[in-house]
């Protein structure tokens, strides 16, 4: 997985690209989130538009990121989820917990 980092409206946006699957994307995601938090980020937005696939380990990392960020009083937002990635979160009812927006503007607005 490839991850690019940028800032928007005081939040750190991580543009994810590829697979969030065991042994590769899951580790990369965890590291990127920890790095952003270590660098002082409070709110983090995950751009999921180019995530091709996700497995249960990837879902676990999303949940871990959610917990890490919210425990520090921040917000974690996800946006642009491809249908199948969203489906995987729906099936385990995580859409009821995670903050999921349609696009980046909506996600940025939800932070305030």
């Amino acid at each position, binding site marked *: 997985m490839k991850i690019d980092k940028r800032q928007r409206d005081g939040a750190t946006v991580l543009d994810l690209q590829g697979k969030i*699957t065991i042994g590769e994307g899951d580790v990369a995601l965890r590291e990127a989130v920890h790095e952003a938090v270590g660098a002082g980020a409070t709110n983090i937005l995950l751009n999921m538009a*180019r995530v091709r696939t996700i*497995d*249960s380990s990837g879902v676990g990392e999303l949940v871990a990121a959610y917990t890490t960020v919210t425990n520090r009083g921040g917000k974690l937002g996800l946006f642009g989820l491809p*249908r199948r990635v*969203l489906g995987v979160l*729906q*099936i*385990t009812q995580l859409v009821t917990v995670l903050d999921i927006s349609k696009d980046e503007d909506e996600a940025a607005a939800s932070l305030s």
Partner: protein
Amino acid sequence: MSSPVPQTIQLRVGSRYENIELVQAVLDEVLEPLEIDEESSYWMGIALREALTNAMKHGNKLNPEKRVEVGLEVTADAIDILVQDEGSGFDPAAVEDPLAPDNLLKTQGRGIFYMRKFMDKIEYDFGAGGGTKVRLHKKFGGPSVDVEGDQGGAE
């Protein structure tokens, strides 16, 4: 090219996550001439990945010397995916429900649940010699995974 069915393909790999890609590539090759719709192939692929992950991680404890044996039994109508490890088994009935409120925010425990959702049937079998064998069954052309939303992202 005529579809080579019925047939069984067997594959044995060491317990390294990189090999999940390889097994997935074989599944794709097997399904391709059968013209299974892309949507079903995708979900079968995820179920296979979950089974492999469990075999490598929980069964073989990521020991690369321990092998995972995969069988793909294909007919014109259905596929059975068998994944067997060299571990010491477990009690499927004791696995917790990932939808229980207390479990919803756990970072683990969704793999078997996904397999059940993405396939028609999954069955565990524990041989006398140890090891876990899981059989994932899927009829072709059956109902697909019920995924509602769409955020218009790239597929």
